[in-house]
Protein backbone atom coordinates (compact mmCIF):
# COMPACT_ATOMS: atom_id res chain seq x y z
CA UNK A 1 0.00 0.00 0.00
CA UNK A 2 1.19 3.46 -0.86
CA UNK A 3 0.86 4.76 2.67
CA UNK A 4 3.57 6.38 4.79
CA UNK A 5 5.04 4.11 7.45
CA UNK A 6 6.04 6.03 10.57
CA UNK A 7 9.64 5.33 11.51
CA UNK A 8 11.93 6.65 14.26
CA UNK A 9 15.22 8.17 13.21
CA UNK A 10 17.71 5.64 14.58
CA UNK A 11 20.87 7.51 13.76
CA UNK A 12 21.93 10.78 12.16
CA UNK A 13 25.32 11.05 10.50
CA UNK A 14 26.76 14.46 9.64
CA UNK A 15 28.31 13.78 6.26
CA UNK A 16 29.38 17.35 5.49
CA UNK A 17 28.46 20.89 6.56
CA UNK A 18 25.33 20.60 4.41
CA UNK A 19 24.51 16.87 4.21
CA UNK A 20 23.07 14.54 6.83
CA UNK A 21 22.23 10.86 6.56
CA UNK A 22 19.17 9.59 8.44
CA UNK A 23 19.12 5.88 9.26
CA UNK A 24 15.99 3.86 10.06
CA UNK A 25 15.15 0.31 11.08
CA UNK A 26 13.49 -1.14 7.99
CA UNK A 27 12.73 -4.67 6.89
CA UNK A 28 14.84 -4.75 3.75
CA UNK A 29 13.17 -6.80 1.01
CA UNK A 30 13.45 -5.63 -2.56
CA UNK A 31 15.07 -2.23 -2.16
CA UNK A 32 17.42 -1.52 -5.04
CA UNK A 33 20.09 1.20 -5.21
CA UNK A 34 18.71 4.08 -7.27
CA UNK A 35 15.20 3.73 -5.91
CA UNK A 36 13.72 6.48 -3.77
CA UNK A 37 11.41 6.97 -0.81
CA UNK A 38 8.72 9.59 -0.34
CA UNK A 39 9.69 11.28 2.91
CA UNK A 40 6.90 12.88 4.98
CA UNK A 41 7.79 15.22 7.83
CA UNK A 42 4.09 15.78 8.68
CA UNK A 43 4.31 19.11 6.90
CA UNK A 44 5.35 18.20 3.36
CA UNK A 45 6.54 15.16 1.45
CA UNK A 46 9.47 14.92 -0.96
CA UNK A 47 11.24 12.16 -2.89
CA UNK A 48 14.70 11.23 -1.58
CA UNK A 49 17.14 8.65 -2.91
CA UNK A 50 17.96 5.70 -0.70
CA UNK A 51 21.61 6.03 0.27
CA UNK A 52 21.95 2.98 2.50
CA UNK A 53 20.49 -0.51 2.12
CA UNK A 54 21.63 -2.93 4.79
CA UNK A 55 19.85 -6.30 4.53
CA UNK A 56 21.88 -7.70 7.46
CA UNK A 57 21.09 -5.02 10.04
CA UNK A 58 17.73 -4.34 8.37
CA UNK A 59 18.39 -0.65 7.97
CA UNK A 60 17.88 1.88 5.25
CA UNK A 61 19.17 5.42 5.06
CA UNK A 62 18.42 8.58 3.17
CA UNK A 63 20.83 11.46 2.76
CA UNK A 64 19.58 15.01 2.48
CA UNK A 65 21.33 18.23 1.54
CA UNK A 66 19.95 21.25 3.33
CA UNK A 67 18.78 23.45 0.47
CA UNK A 68 15.34 24.75 1.39
CA UNK A 69 12.42 24.83 3.77
CA UNK A 70 11.63 21.11 3.75
CA UNK A 71 15.22 19.90 3.95
CA UNK A 72 15.95 22.43 6.69
CA UNK A 73 13.03 21.11 8.72
CA UNK A 74 14.33 17.56 8.35
CA UNK A 75 17.86 18.66 9.23
CA UNK A 76 16.54 20.07 12.50
CA UNK A 77 15.20 16.67 13.58
CA UNK A 78 17.03 14.58 16.16
CA UNK A 79 17.61 10.89 16.70
CA UNK A 80 14.37 9.38 18.02
CA UNK A 81 12.18 11.83 16.11
CA UNK A 82 9.72 10.40 13.61
CA UNK A 83 9.27 10.65 9.88
CA UNK A 84 6.86 8.96 7.49
CA UNK A 85 8.37 6.89 4.68
CA UNK A 86 6.62 5.28 1.74
CA UNK A 87 8.33 3.31 -0.94
CA UNK A 88 10.64 2.11 -2.28
CA UNK A 89 9.62 3.63 -5.59
CA UNK A 90 10.92 3.66 -9.13
CA UNK A 91 13.39 1.65 -11.12
CA UNK A 92 16.85 1.49 -9.62
CA UNK A 93 20.25 0.75 -11.12
CA UNK A 94 20.69 -2.55 -12.89
CA UNK A 95 23.89 -4.09 -11.56
CA UNK A 96 25.88 -5.95 -14.21
CA UNK A 97 29.41 -6.11 -15.55
CA UNK A 98 32.75 -6.79 -13.91
CA UNK A 99 34.21 -3.29 -13.87
CA UNK A 100 31.98 -0.27 -13.36
CA UNK A 101 32.65 3.46 -13.19
CA UNK A 102 30.23 5.33 -10.90
CA UNK A 103 30.12 9.12 -11.10
CA UNK A 104 28.38 11.08 -8.37
CA UNK A 105 28.08 14.83 -8.08
CA UNK A 106 27.17 16.49 -4.79
CA UNK A 107 24.11 14.92 -3.15
CA UNK A 108 23.92 12.72 -6.27
CA UNK A 109 26.37 10.53 -4.37
CA UNK A 110 23.40 9.26 -2.30
CA UNK A 111 22.23 6.53 -4.69
CA UNK A 112 25.80 6.06 -5.94
CA UNK A 113 27.07 4.96 -2.51
CA UNK A 114 24.19 2.50 -2.16
CA UNK A 115 25.06 1.17 -5.62
CA UNK A 116 28.75 0.99 -4.75
CA UNK A 117 28.15 -1.09 -1.62
CA UNK A 118 25.76 -3.47 -3.37
CA UNK A 119 27.99 -3.91 -6.44
CA UNK A 120 31.15 -4.50 -4.43
CA UNK A 121 29.29 -7.08 -2.29
CA UNK A 122 28.64 -8.88 -5.58
CA UNK A 123 32.37 -8.88 -6.29
CA UNK A 124 32.25 -6.18 -8.95
CA UNK A 125 35.26 -3.89 -9.34
CA UNK A 126 33.83 -0.38 -8.82
CA UNK A 127 35.67 2.86 -9.42
CA UNK A 128 33.95 5.96 -8.07
CA UNK A 129 34.38 9.55 -9.10
CA UNK A 130 33.06 11.60 -6.21
CA UNK A 131 32.70 15.23 -7.20
CA UNK A 132 31.99 18.20 -4.95
CA UNK A 133 32.61 21.91 -4.83
CA UNK A 134 35.23 21.64 -2.09
CA UNK A 135 36.91 18.94 0.00
CA UNK A 136 34.66 19.04 3.07
CA UNK A 137 31.62 18.50 0.82
CA UNK A 138 32.97 15.16 -0.42
CA UNK A 139 30.67 12.61 1.20
CA UNK A 140 30.77 8.88 1.96
CA UNK A 141 34.55 8.62 1.41
CA UNK A 142 35.08 6.20 4.32
CA UNK A 143 32.15 4.00 3.23
CA UNK A 144 33.63 3.86 -0.27
CA UNK A 145 37.04 2.86 1.14
CA UNK A 146 35.42 0.23 3.36
CA UNK A 147 33.52 -1.24 0.41
CA UNK A 148 36.76 -1.88 -1.42
CA UNK A 149 35.85 0.38 -4.32
CA UNK A 150 38.51 2.67 -5.77
CA UNK A 151 37.79 6.32 -4.93
CA UNK A 152 38.75 9.18 -7.21
CA UNK A 153 37.92 12.54 -5.68
CA UNK A 154 37.33 15.69 -7.61
CA UNK A 155 36.70 19.24 -6.37
CA UNK A 156 35.90 22.47 -8.17
CA UNK A 157 38.46 24.34 -6.08
CA UNK A 158 41.17 21.69 -6.08
CA UNK A 159 41.15 21.19 -2.32
CA UNK A 160 41.01 17.42 -2.79
CA UNK A 161 41.94 15.20 -5.68
CA UNK A 162 41.39 16.28 -9.26
CA UNK A 163 40.82 20.02 -9.67
CA UNK A 164 37.89 20.64 -12.00
CA UNK A 165 34.58 19.12 -12.93
CA UNK A 166 33.67 15.47 -12.41
CA UNK A 167 33.02 15.19 -16.12
CA UNK A 168 36.62 16.20 -16.89
CA UNK A 169 37.93 13.54 -14.55
CA UNK A 170 35.48 11.02 -16.02
CA UNK A 171 36.74 11.73 -19.53
CA UNK A 172 40.35 11.32 -18.37
CA UNK A 173 39.51 8.09 -16.53
CA UNK A 174 37.57 6.66 -19.47
CA UNK A 175 40.52 7.31 -21.77
CA UNK A 176 42.82 5.34 -19.45
CA UNK A 177 40.64 2.42 -18.30
CA UNK A 178 38.10 0.08 -19.89
CA UNK A 179 34.75 -0.19 -18.11
CA UNK A 180 31.78 -2.47 -18.75
CA UNK A 181 29.27 0.04 -17.52
CA UNK A 182 28.83 3.54 -16.10
CA UNK A 183 26.31 4.76 -13.54
CA UNK A 184 25.76 8.34 -12.55
CA UNK A 185 23.69 10.67 -10.41
CA UNK A 186 24.24 14.36 -9.91
CA UNK A 187 23.27 17.77 -11.24
CA UNK A 188 21.60 17.32 -14.61
CA UNK A 189 24.07 19.61 -16.35
CA UNK A 190 26.85 17.27 -15.16
CA UNK A 191 24.97 14.15 -16.24
CA UNK A 192 24.21 15.62 -19.67
CA UNK A 193 27.92 16.32 -20.20
CA UNK A 194 28.78 12.82 -19.04
CA UNK A 195 26.08 11.39 -21.29
CA UNK A 196 27.69 13.12 -24.29
CA UNK A 197 31.13 11.78 -23.29
CA UNK A 198 29.82 8.24 -22.78
CA UNK A 199 28.12 8.29 -26.19
CA UNK A 200 31.61 8.50 -27.74
CA UNK A 201 32.85 5.52 -25.78
CA UNK A 202 29.80 3.33 -26.55
CA UNK A 203 29.71 1.97 -23.00
CA UNK A 204 26.28 1.12 -21.52
CA UNK A 205 25.41 3.73 -18.93
CA UNK A 206 22.63 4.50 -16.49
CA UNK A 207 21.69 7.94 -15.21
CA UNK A 208 19.37 8.85 -12.35
CA UNK A 209 17.04 11.72 -13.27
CA UNK A 210 15.25 14.05 -10.91
CA UNK A 211 11.89 15.68 -11.59
CA UNK A 212 9.22 17.33 -9.45
CA UNK A 213 7.03 14.60 -7.97
CA UNK A 214 3.68 14.63 -6.25
CA UNK A 215 2.14 11.17 -5.97
CA UNK A 216 5.26 9.05 -6.52
CA UNK A 217 3.08 6.16 -7.63
CA UNK A 218 2.68 6.91 -11.31
CA UNK A 219 -0.67 8.66 -11.40
CA UNK A 220 -0.39 12.43 -11.21
CA UNK A 221 1.81 12.85 -14.28
CA UNK A 222 3.84 15.63 -12.69
CA UNK A 223 7.16 13.93 -13.47
CA UNK A 224 6.41 12.84 -17.06
CA UNK A 225 9.23 13.69 -19.46
CA UNK A 226 9.19 14.84 -23.09
CA UNK A 227 8.82 13.42 -25.68
CA UNK A 228 8.17 9.90 -24.49
CA UNK A 229 5.85 10.75 -21.60
CA UNK A 230 7.50 8.27 -19.23
CA UNK A 231 7.03 8.81 -15.51
CA UNK A 232 10.32 9.43 -13.71
CA UNK A 233 8.72 7.95 -10.56
CA UNK A 234 7.92 4.61 -12.24
CA UNK A 235 9.83 4.16 -15.50
CA UNK A 236 12.76 6.01 -13.86
CA UNK A 237 14.42 7.58 -12.03
CA UNK A 238 17.23 5.50 -13.51
CA UNK A 239 17.36 5.46 -17.31
CA UNK A 240 19.78 3.73 -19.68
CA UNK A 241 21.59 5.76 -22.32
CA UNK A 242 19.39 4.46 -25.13
CA UNK A 243 16.33 5.61 -23.19
CA UNK A 244 17.83 9.00 -22.39
CA UNK A 245 18.45 9.54 -26.09
CA UNK A 246 14.66 9.54 -26.42
CA UNK A 247 14.09 11.93 -23.50
CA UNK A 248 14.37 15.22 -25.36
CA UNK A 249 14.14 17.42 -22.25
CA UNK A 250 17.13 15.77 -20.56
CA UNK A 251 19.71 18.45 -19.83
CA UNK A 252 17.45 21.17 -21.21
CA UNK A 253 14.45 21.91 -19.00
CA UNK A 254 12.23 20.63 -16.22
CA UNK A 255 8.76 21.41 -14.94
CA UNK A 256 7.91 22.95 -11.56
CA UNK A 257 5.03 22.09 -9.23
CA UNK A 258 2.47 23.76 -11.49
CA UNK A 259 3.94 22.22 -14.63
CA UNK A 260 5.61 25.39 -15.93
CA UNK A 261 8.89 24.65 -17.73
CA UNK A 262 12.21 26.03 -16.51
CA UNK A 263 15.55 25.84 -18.31
CA UNK A 264 18.26 23.77 -16.69
CA UNK A 265 21.15 26.17 -16.14
Amino acid sequence: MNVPKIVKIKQIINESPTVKTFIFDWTVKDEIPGQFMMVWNFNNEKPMSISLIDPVKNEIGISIRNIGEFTNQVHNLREGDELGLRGPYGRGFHIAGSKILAVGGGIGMAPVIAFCEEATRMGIDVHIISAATTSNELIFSSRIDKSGAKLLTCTDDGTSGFCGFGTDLAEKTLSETDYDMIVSCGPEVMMKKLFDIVENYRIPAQFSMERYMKCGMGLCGQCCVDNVGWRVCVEGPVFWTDELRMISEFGKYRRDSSGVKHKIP
Partner: protein
Amino acid sequence: MLEIELCGIKMRSPTMLAAGILGSTASSLNWAGRSGAGAVVTKSFGLNPNKGYANPTTVEVTGGIINAIGLSNPGVANFKLELEKLDKSVPAIASLYGANQYEFSEIASEVENLVDAIELNVSCPHAMGGCGSAIGQDPHLTADIVRTVKKSVKIPVFVKLTPNVTDIVEIAQYAEDAGADALTMINSVGPGMKIDVETGIPILKNRFGGLSGPAIKPIAIRCVFDVFESIDIPIIGVGGIRDHNDVLEFLYAGARCVQIGTSIMYEGMDIFTKINNGLRRFMDEKGYGSVDEIIGISHD
Protein backbone atom coordinates in the same frame (compact mmCIF):
# COMPACT_ATOMS: atom_id res chain seq x y z
CA MET B 1 -14.98 -4.18 -33.72
CA LEU B 2 -14.24 -1.71 -30.89
CA GLU B 3 -14.78 1.47 -32.89
CA ILE B 4 -17.38 3.88 -31.58
CA GLU B 5 -18.59 7.33 -32.39
CA LEU B 6 -19.14 9.88 -29.66
CA CYS B 7 -20.74 13.19 -30.60
CA GLY B 8 -19.28 12.85 -34.08
CA ILE B 9 -15.84 11.94 -32.74
CA LYS B 10 -14.57 8.62 -34.05
CA MET B 11 -12.74 6.49 -31.50
CA ARG B 12 -10.91 3.24 -32.32
CA SER B 13 -11.74 1.82 -28.88
CA PRO B 14 -14.24 2.84 -26.19
CA THR B 15 -11.49 3.55 -23.64
CA MET B 16 -10.13 6.99 -22.78
CA LEU B 17 -7.45 8.22 -20.44
CA ALA B 18 -9.37 9.98 -17.65
CA ALA B 19 -8.74 13.58 -16.67
CA GLY B 20 -6.17 14.17 -13.95
CA ILE B 21 -4.09 11.09 -14.68
CA LEU B 22 -0.81 11.60 -16.57
CA GLY B 23 -2.43 14.28 -18.67
CA SER B 24 -0.26 17.28 -17.85
CA THR B 25 1.94 16.99 -20.93
CA ALA B 26 1.42 16.24 -24.60
CA SER B 27 4.08 13.56 -24.18
CA SER B 28 2.11 11.54 -21.65
CA LEU B 29 -1.16 12.03 -23.57
CA ASN B 30 0.54 10.81 -26.76
CA TRP B 31 1.93 7.85 -24.83
CA ALA B 32 -1.59 6.89 -23.70
CA GLY B 33 -2.74 7.12 -27.30
CA ARG B 34 0.13 4.89 -28.45
CA SER B 35 -0.77 2.47 -25.66
CA GLY B 36 -4.27 1.80 -26.96
CA ALA B 37 -6.50 4.50 -25.46
CA GLY B 38 -9.27 5.44 -27.88
CA ALA B 39 -9.07 9.08 -26.79
CA VAL B 40 -7.26 11.09 -24.15
CA VAL B 41 -8.44 13.71 -21.68
CA THR B 42 -6.01 16.31 -20.37
CA LYS B 43 -5.51 17.11 -16.74
CA SER B 44 -7.82 19.97 -15.84
CA PHE B 45 -6.35 23.37 -16.46
CA GLY B 46 -7.51 26.88 -15.66
CA LEU B 47 -6.67 30.42 -16.63
CA ASN B 48 -3.50 30.80 -14.60
CA PRO B 49 -0.67 28.58 -13.35
CA ASN B 50 -1.59 26.83 -10.12
CA LYS B 51 0.78 24.90 -7.87
CA GLY B 52 -2.01 22.94 -6.21
CA TYR B 53 -1.66 21.67 -2.66
CA ALA B 54 1.55 20.75 -0.92
CA ASN B 55 2.39 17.05 -0.55
CA PRO B 56 1.22 14.53 0.48
CA THR B 57 -1.37 14.92 -2.24
CA THR B 58 -2.14 11.23 -2.73
CA VAL B 59 -2.44 8.22 -0.47
CA GLU B 60 -3.64 4.69 -1.11
CA VAL B 61 -6.69 3.33 0.74
CA THR B 62 -8.54 0.04 0.45
CA GLY B 63 -9.92 -0.13 -3.06
CA GLY B 64 -8.19 2.89 -4.50
CA ILE B 65 -6.64 6.20 -3.57
CA ILE B 66 -7.68 9.50 -2.16
CA ASN B 67 -6.09 12.54 -3.72
CA ALA B 68 -6.06 16.27 -3.26
CA ILE B 69 -3.63 17.46 -5.92
CA GLY B 70 -5.45 20.79 -5.95
CA LEU B 71 -5.84 21.23 -9.72
CA SER B 72 -2.16 21.96 -10.27
CA ASN B 73 -1.58 23.12 -13.83
CA PRO B 74 0.56 25.59 -15.78
CA GLY B 75 -2.35 27.75 -16.95
CA VAL B 76 -4.02 27.89 -20.34
CA ALA B 77 -1.26 29.83 -22.11
CA ASN B 78 1.37 27.23 -21.20
CA PHE B 79 -1.02 24.36 -21.72
CA LYS B 80 -1.75 25.50 -25.27
CA LEU B 81 1.92 24.86 -26.04
CA GLU B 82 1.41 21.27 -24.87
CA LEU B 83 -1.80 20.85 -26.89
CA GLU B 84 0.05 22.00 -30.01
CA LYS B 85 2.38 19.02 -29.56
CA LEU B 86 -0.39 16.39 -29.53
CA ASP B 87 0.35 13.86 -32.24
CA LYS B 88 -3.34 13.59 -33.20
CA SER B 89 -3.16 9.82 -33.23
CA VAL B 90 -6.32 9.77 -31.11
CA PRO B 91 -8.93 12.41 -30.30
CA ALA B 92 -8.02 14.73 -27.44
CA ILE B 93 -10.40 16.28 -24.96
CA ALA B 94 -9.45 19.30 -22.89
CA SER B 95 -10.61 19.21 -19.27
CA LEU B 96 -11.19 22.74 -17.98
CA TYR B 97 -11.95 24.24 -14.63
CA GLY B 98 -12.93 27.73 -13.62
CA ALA B 99 -14.79 29.69 -10.99
CA ASN B 100 -17.62 30.92 -13.24
CA GLN B 101 -19.04 30.66 -16.74
CA TYR B 102 -16.85 33.49 -18.05
CA GLU B 103 -13.63 31.77 -17.04
CA PHE B 104 -14.82 28.48 -18.51
CA SER B 105 -15.83 30.02 -21.82
CA GLU B 106 -12.64 32.06 -22.09
CA ILE B 107 -10.46 28.98 -21.65
CA ALA B 108 -12.65 26.90 -23.95
CA SER B 109 -12.36 29.49 -26.72
CA GLU B 110 -8.59 29.58 -26.29
CA VAL B 111 -8.17 25.85 -26.92
CA GLU B 112 -11.07 25.11 -29.24
CA ASN B 113 -8.88 24.75 -32.30
CA LEU B 114 -6.43 22.41 -30.60
CA VAL B 115 -8.74 19.68 -29.28
CA ASP B 116 -11.70 17.59 -30.39
CA ALA B 117 -13.95 18.30 -27.40
CA ILE B 118 -14.15 20.09 -24.08
CA GLU B 119 -14.85 18.40 -20.75
CA LEU B 120 -16.07 20.77 -18.04
CA ASN B 121 -14.75 19.83 -14.63
CA VAL B 122 -17.51 21.01 -12.34
CA SER B 123 -17.00 18.10 -10.00
CA CYS B 124 -13.54 18.12 -8.40
CA PRO B 125 -14.30 17.37 -4.73
CA HIS B 126 -11.40 19.33 -3.24
CA ALA B 127 -11.06 22.45 -5.38
CA MET B 128 -10.60 25.86 -3.82
CA GLY B 129 -12.29 29.15 -4.60
CA GLY B 130 -15.74 28.00 -5.60
CA CYS B 131 -14.48 25.69 -8.35
CA GLY B 132 -15.21 22.02 -8.83
CA SER B 133 -18.08 20.33 -7.07
CA ALA B 134 -19.21 23.60 -5.50
CA ILE B 135 -20.49 24.31 -9.01
CA GLY B 136 -21.50 20.79 -9.99
CA GLN B 137 -23.69 20.33 -6.93
CA ASP B 138 -25.85 23.25 -8.09
CA PRO B 139 -27.91 22.45 -11.20
CA HIS B 140 -28.42 26.12 -12.06
CA LEU B 141 -24.71 27.03 -11.88
CA THR B 142 -23.89 23.93 -13.93
CA ALA B 143 -26.47 24.85 -16.55
CA ASP B 144 -25.20 28.45 -16.73
CA ILE B 145 -21.69 27.27 -17.44
CA VAL B 146 -22.76 24.72 -20.03
CA ARG B 147 -24.91 27.29 -21.80
CA THR B 148 -22.16 29.91 -21.89
CA VAL B 149 -19.46 27.50 -23.05
CA LYS B 150 -21.75 26.05 -25.70
CA LYS B 151 -22.25 29.56 -27.12
CA SER B 152 -18.51 30.19 -27.26
CA VAL B 153 -17.27 27.01 -28.98
CA LYS B 154 -18.34 24.80 -31.86
CA ILE B 155 -16.76 21.54 -30.67
CA PRO B 156 -18.67 19.09 -28.43
CA VAL B 157 -18.93 19.97 -24.75
CA PHE B 158 -18.97 17.22 -22.14
CA VAL B 159 -19.83 17.83 -18.50
CA LYS B 160 -18.17 15.74 -15.80
CA LEU B 161 -20.61 15.22 -12.95
CA THR B 162 -20.02 14.67 -9.29
CA PRO B 163 -21.74 11.73 -7.57
CA ASN B 164 -21.81 13.73 -4.35
CA VAL B 165 -25.33 15.04 -4.82
CA THR B 166 -28.74 14.00 -3.64
CA ASP B 167 -30.04 13.46 -7.15
CA ILE B 168 -27.56 13.11 -10.01
CA VAL B 169 -30.41 12.67 -12.48
CA GLU B 170 -31.60 16.22 -11.82
CA ILE B 171 -28.12 17.65 -12.48
CA ALA B 172 -27.77 15.52 -15.60
CA GLN B 173 -31.07 16.79 -16.96
CA TYR B 174 -30.12 20.41 -16.31
CA ALA B 175 -26.82 19.84 -18.13
CA GLU B 176 -28.59 18.22 -21.08
CA ASP B 177 -31.20 20.96 -21.27
CA ALA B 178 -28.42 23.57 -21.22
CA GLY B 179 -26.92 21.97 -24.32
CA ALA B 180 -24.30 19.50 -23.06
CA ASP B 181 -23.30 17.05 -25.80
CA ALA B 182 -22.35 14.24 -23.41
CA LEU B 183 -21.98 13.57 -19.70
CA THR B 184 -18.91 12.11 -18.06
CA MET B 185 -19.69 10.36 -14.83
CA ILE B 186 -18.48 10.12 -12.21
CA ASN B 187 -15.73 12.24 -10.72
CA SER B 188 -14.10 11.02 -7.52
CA VAL B 189 -16.27 10.41 -4.49
CA GLY B 190 -16.19 12.13 -1.16
CA PRO B 191 -14.07 13.87 -0.14
CA GLY B 192 -12.63 11.16 2.03
CA MET B 193 -9.89 11.20 4.59
CA LYS B 194 -7.08 9.00 5.89
CA ILE B 195 -5.46 9.52 9.27
CA ASP B 196 -2.13 8.05 10.30
CA VAL B 197 -2.78 5.82 13.30
CA GLU B 198 0.67 6.29 14.87
CA THR B 199 0.47 10.04 15.06
CA GLY B 200 -3.21 10.92 14.54
CA ILE B 201 -2.21 13.27 11.73
CA PRO B 202 -4.36 13.42 8.57
CA ILE B 203 -2.05 12.19 5.81
CA LEU B 204 -3.13 14.46 2.95
CA LYS B 205 -1.87 18.01 3.37
CA ASN B 206 -5.33 19.19 2.38
CA ARG B 207 -6.73 16.67 4.92
CA PHE B 208 -9.50 15.61 2.53
CA GLY B 209 -9.34 14.19 -0.96
CA GLY B 210 -11.45 12.56 -3.63
CA LEU B 211 -11.77 8.77 -3.54
CA SER B 212 -11.13 6.99 -6.84
CA GLY B 213 -10.39 3.45 -7.88
CA PRO B 214 -12.24 0.11 -7.74
CA ALA B 215 -14.05 1.08 -4.52
CA ILE B 216 -16.20 3.66 -6.32
CA LYS B 217 -17.19 1.50 -9.30
CA PRO B 218 -20.55 0.34 -7.91
CA ILE B 219 -21.54 3.97 -7.28
CA ALA B 220 -20.47 4.97 -10.77
CA ILE B 221 -22.40 2.08 -12.36
CA ARG B 222 -25.53 3.06 -10.47
CA CYS B 223 -25.17 6.72 -11.50
CA VAL B 224 -24.74 5.76 -15.18
CA PHE B 225 -27.69 3.36 -14.96
CA ASP B 226 -29.99 5.99 -13.39
CA VAL B 227 -29.05 8.81 -15.72
CA PHE B 228 -29.22 6.66 -18.88
CA GLU B 229 -32.96 6.30 -18.47
CA SER B 230 -33.53 10.03 -18.08
CA ILE B 231 -31.46 11.66 -20.82
CA ASP B 232 -30.79 11.25 -24.53
CA ILE B 233 -27.17 12.39 -24.80
CA PRO B 234 -24.28 9.88 -24.55
CA ILE B 235 -22.68 8.97 -21.23
CA ILE B 236 -18.95 8.47 -20.71
CA GLY B 237 -18.55 6.11 -17.75
CA VAL B 238 -15.68 6.46 -15.33
CA GLY B 239 -14.86 5.11 -11.89
CA GLY B 240 -12.81 2.12 -10.83
CA ILE B 241 -12.33 0.39 -14.18
CA ARG B 242 -9.49 -2.11 -14.03
CA ASP B 243 -10.37 -4.76 -16.62
CA HIS B 244 -12.66 -5.40 -19.57
CA ASN B 245 -15.39 -6.83 -17.34
CA ASP B 246 -15.58 -3.47 -15.59
CA VAL B 247 -15.93 -1.78 -18.97
CA LEU B 248 -18.74 -4.16 -19.89
CA GLU B 249 -20.64 -3.27 -16.73
CA PHE B 250 -20.48 0.41 -17.66
CA LEU B 251 -21.61 -0.33 -21.23
CA TYR B 252 -24.48 -2.51 -19.98
CA ALA B 253 -25.52 0.30 -17.62
CA GLY B 254 -25.65 2.69 -20.55
CA ALA B 255 -22.22 4.25 -21.07
CA ARG B 256 -21.12 4.70 -24.68
CA CYS B 257 -17.48 4.63 -23.75
CA VAL B 258 -15.37 4.78 -20.59
CA GLN B 259 -12.43 6.57 -19.01
CA ILE B 260 -9.66 4.88 -17.07
CA GLY B 261 -7.54 6.54 -14.42
CA THR B 262 -6.53 5.19 -11.04
CA SER B 263 -5.99 1.61 -12.23
CA ILE B 264 -2.97 2.76 -14.22
CA MET B 265 -1.31 2.65 -10.80
CA TYR B 266 -1.87 -1.12 -10.70
CA GLU B 267 -1.58 -2.03 -14.38
CA GLY B 268 0.64 0.65 -15.92
CA MET B 269 -0.06 2.14 -19.33
CA ASP B 270 -0.57 -1.40 -20.72
CA ILE B 271 -4.06 -1.30 -19.23
CA PHE B 272 -5.60 0.07 -22.44
CA THR B 273 -4.27 -2.74 -24.62
CA LYS B 274 -5.21 -5.38 -22.05
CA ILE B 275 -8.76 -4.05 -21.83
CA ASN B 276 -9.12 -3.71 -25.59
CA ASN B 277 -7.96 -7.29 -26.08
CA GLY B 278 -10.31 -8.51 -23.36
CA LEU B 279 -13.25 -6.69 -24.94
CA ARG B 280 -12.47 -8.12 -28.38
CA ARG B 281 -12.28 -11.65 -27.02
CA PHE B 282 -15.52 -11.25 -25.09
CA MET B 283 -17.40 -9.75 -28.02
CA ASP B 284 -16.10 -12.45 -30.33
CA GLU B 285 -17.25 -15.21 -27.97
CA LYS B 286 -20.68 -13.66 -27.52
CA GLY B 287 -21.11 -12.81 -31.18
CA TYR B 288 -21.26 -9.03 -30.79
CA GLY B 289 -20.21 -7.14 -33.90
CA SER B 290 -19.96 -3.69 -32.36
CA VAL B 291 -19.88 -1.91 -29.03
CA ASP B 292 -23.19 -0.22 -29.89
CA GLU B 293 -24.93 -3.57 -29.50
CA ILE B 294 -23.88 -3.75 -25.86
CA ILE B 295 -24.80 -0.26 -24.69
CA GLY B 296 -27.65 -0.21 -22.18
CA ILE B 297 -28.59 -3.88 -22.39
CA SER B 298 -29.18 -4.04 -18.63
CA HIS B 299 -32.21 -1.82 -19.10
CA ASP B 300 -35.53 -3.46 -19.92
